[in-house]
């Protein structure tokens, strides 16, 4: 067949859909290569695994809270009264071959899905990949993480075992604490009093249709935008803001990414086969008057749990109403505020820096010391709350008093992030200095030489052309200047106060950041490389002399 015609099936589609035109643009699309770009892929693949295994589970799972007497093959619970949801989860685990495997893959993939999304988010954050034109994709990605966490939590509630019921009870108590509408929301969500018999069927449809549907839609837009904007890349020789350097989609990425899907699926399947997760038969059916000690939610709920745990018990009673600050603050104010800050970060940063350019080159975290500091401060805050979620475990494990752990965390959640910010920023700045030293003075060779006059000095060799270029391939960043108070005619500039704040923030943002050397500085440093910090190539004999002269 000649190259001028498609083979029959492709021709059929092309005649109707013009797929050839789409393919021509995208078959050889370039994607840059870096390990950190795989994180999003892991999230995507675990989502697909969740769709596949979840569908399998729906064939047997009965989303009903009707009471049945268990007659399956798990003898320890035989004859017990329980909901159909719990009984069918036991059936999936013991009587459907491969059922337990699918349940466990589903749960492991859920844990991985959310972990991958979070680490992916951190990668985007620390490299500045969220900057224009990708801010909207950041918001989409963030929304998926948010929905994923809710989805996972609801899934955890479906089997109606003792742990899942306890988790829902806690959520119910939090909802009930919302001012004004709490009680009503509660009765509408749970169909009356807790637990009622509506929650499993309602949560089921949210879990298998509503949220996966929305996530699927968002994933599609997310990926479309990645292709449309073309992937960002790290700065380097030949890699500029106006191009993208890497391997083509067809065949290299088809094989690599396709293969990686199978690797992720394979690993989750092996985890499902070998590592037990959520053994619901050990917990027993849900009973609102019982609970197991040391119960823990899935890891991604830990920070909310911690936030609630370390809050002191404040409540106000006046005018016939109750305001439960012990829940309003840690569950209804702080997490949403934290999450909103993260979601809006690209817009906040762009406003502060006044940067309106398109960015396709990624930042090295050290080159944005303030942003990196903010990121680590956020992580510290999250991490401390997360630790709070296990305050009892920490207390028993390390033999310290629960009160002390809790009091420590009450202060640490405020001081820790500030400290983390400051330390991280200092470290980033020192790393920038080290980079500049490397550029200006070359590498330390460890070779000590003695001059004829008897002075000792260490030899330096200059860094190579590609590396040197990479080190300088970044912007010179300066704080925003908002111009004079009044213009030439003495008219005050508009929105002065806001702009002043902005200039202050911008100053803070770029304060102390180290600029890369200018061409003159570089040339000057190379020209007089004769003092203590010499720059010149190392020769064999000199290496040899190091040993002898050192000893002398």
């Amino acid at each position: 067949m000649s190259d001028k015609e498609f083979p029959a099936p492709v021709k059929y589609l092309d005649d109707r859909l013009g797929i050839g035109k789409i393919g021509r643009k995208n078959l050889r699309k370039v994607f840059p290569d870096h390990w950190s770009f795989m994180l999003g892929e892991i999230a995507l693949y675990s989502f697909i695994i969740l769709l596949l295994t979840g569908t399998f589970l729906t064939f047997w799972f009965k989303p009903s809270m009707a009471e049945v007497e268990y007659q399956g093959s798990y003898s320890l619970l035989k004859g017990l009264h329980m909901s159909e949801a719990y009984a069918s989860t036991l059936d999936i685990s013991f009587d459907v071959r491969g059922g337990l495997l699918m349940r466990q893959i589903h749960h492991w993939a859920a844990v991985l899905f959310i972990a991958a999304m979070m680490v992916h988010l951190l990668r985007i954050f620390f490299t500045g990949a969220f900057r224009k034109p990708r801010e909207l994709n950041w918001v989409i990605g963030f929304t998926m993480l948010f929905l994923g966490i809710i989805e996972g939590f609801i899934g955890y509630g479906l089997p109606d075992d003792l742990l899942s019921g306890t988790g829902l009870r806690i959520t119910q108590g939090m909802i009930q604490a919302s001012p004004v509408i709490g009680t009503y929301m509660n009765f509408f969500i749970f169909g009356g009093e807790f637990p009622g018999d509506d929650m499993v069927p309602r949560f089921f449809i949210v879990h298998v249709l509503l949220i996966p549907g929305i996530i699927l839609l968002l994933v599609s837009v997310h990926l479309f935008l990645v292709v449309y904007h073309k992937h960002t890349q790290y700065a380097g020789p030949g890699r500029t803001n106006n191009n993208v350097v890497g391997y083509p989609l067809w065949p290299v990425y088809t094989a690599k990414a396709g293969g990686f899907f199978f690797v992720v699926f394979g690993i989750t399947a092996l985890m499902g086969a070998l590592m037990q997760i959520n053994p619901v038969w050990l917990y027993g059916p849900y009973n609102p008057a019982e609970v197991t000690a040391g119960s823990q939610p899935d890891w991604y709920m830990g920070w909310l749990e911690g936030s609630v745990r370390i809050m002191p018990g404040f409540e106000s009673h006046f005018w016939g109403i109750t305001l439960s600050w012990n829940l309003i603050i840690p569950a209804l104010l702080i997490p949403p505020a934290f999450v909103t800050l993260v979601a809006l970060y690209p817009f906040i940063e762009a406003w502060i820096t006044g940067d309106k350019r398109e960015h396709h080159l990624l930042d090295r975290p050290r080159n944005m010391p303030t942003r990196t500091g903010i990121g680590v401060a956020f992580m510290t805050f999250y991490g401390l709350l997360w630790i709070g979620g296990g305050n009892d475990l920490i207390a028993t494990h390390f033999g310290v008093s629960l009160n002390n752990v809790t009091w420590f965390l009450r202060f640490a959640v405020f001081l820790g992030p500030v400290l983390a910010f400051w330390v991280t920023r200092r470290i980033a700045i020192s790393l920038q200095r080290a980079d500049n030293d490397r550029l200006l003075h070359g590498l330390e060779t460890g070779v000590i030489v003695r001059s004829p006059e008897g002075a000792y000095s260490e030899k330096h060799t200059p860094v190579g052309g590609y590396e040197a270029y990479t080190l300088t391939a970044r912007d010179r960043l300066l704080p925003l200047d908002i111009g004079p108070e009044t213009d030439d005619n003495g008219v005050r500039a508009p929105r002065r106060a806001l702009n002043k704040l902005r200039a202050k923030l911008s100053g803070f943002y770029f304060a102390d950041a180290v600029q890369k050397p200018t061409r003159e500085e570089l040339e000057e440093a190379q020209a007089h490389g004769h003092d203590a910090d010499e720059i010149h190539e190392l020769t064999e004999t000199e290496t040899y002399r190091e040993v002898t002269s050192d000893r002398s």
Partner: protein
Amino acid sequence: MSDEKLPVVKADEGHGAVEVAEPIADPGIEPHEYRITDIDPKAADRVERQVSAMFTLAGVLALGSCVAYFAIPRDSVFEFGPLSGNANNMAIGLCIGLALFLIGAGAIQWAKKLMVDEEISEDRHPAHSSPEQIQDITEAFKQGAAESGFGRRTLIRRGLFTGLGLLGLPAVVLLRDLGPLPGRTLYHTIWAKGIRVVNDVTARPIKPADMIVGQLVNAIPANLPPLQEESAVEYQNARAKAAVIVVRIRPTEIRTKPGRENWGIDGILCYSKICTHVGCPISLYEQTTHHVLCPCHQSTFDLADSAKVVFGPAARPLPQLPLAVDSEGYLVAQSDFTEPVGPSFFERG
């Protein structure tokens, strides 16, 4: 470093970055380095054999998983330390997992070692439209808008917005039957005057003499178990509020709140088991301190002191159930709880 001397950018230039001559010119993409498999056909053949072996083995394992499905009884157990579990499940999972992994590993190996690995470069273009495109689309939009008369015919416009806006109402109103209104449900439990306090496992009524000092019993109202036959939901809902703990403390150690002098019987006190924080059943009792601990967020209540909070995020003491003894000598409630049990809510007061 001369940071201070660098020029400063004006706000209206819209960015905080300065263009100064680059210190080092872009040397262009590094030259391509050949891999062994590019140079040595034998090495390439070796990789080809590796990859094809992985793919084939994956197929064999896929078959193996089917054999395991039918051949291994579904209740057989595999014992090997931490790797113990259902043998059928593990064998199927191992075969499928390894098969998937090998397909993936093979494909990646193929891409890395055999496919051409020369980097190519593609140009980017700014996201925004060109001025001509902008002009085109603006004109088209304006023309359409003018043709519709949307801007001029304010009556239509207002009507449309009103109609569409009001359609939001049924979208909300139709959800009204999601649940009943709370009414007074949260204020009551099934406890009432004369209802016996029974053990929550055996359902046996309790006599004061049955309880020794230091003992704590999980209990329920005697009218709860019969509910189970009537309606499983009512039963669960009632249990979620009515569960109590009965504790016997040496009377000298009890600090009674004014007005509650006759709520206990010889140091036997009864409290709601539902944590006032967010409603977990509290469970851990420490005899010596009379403290109970909620396992969910570690709120701790002092049962000898009207169950007041001594630690943790809960804000209110556990509600106390006033006890009495009936004619046959069993513990009964004097009344329902005098306040709502469980987590707080806005209207609670």
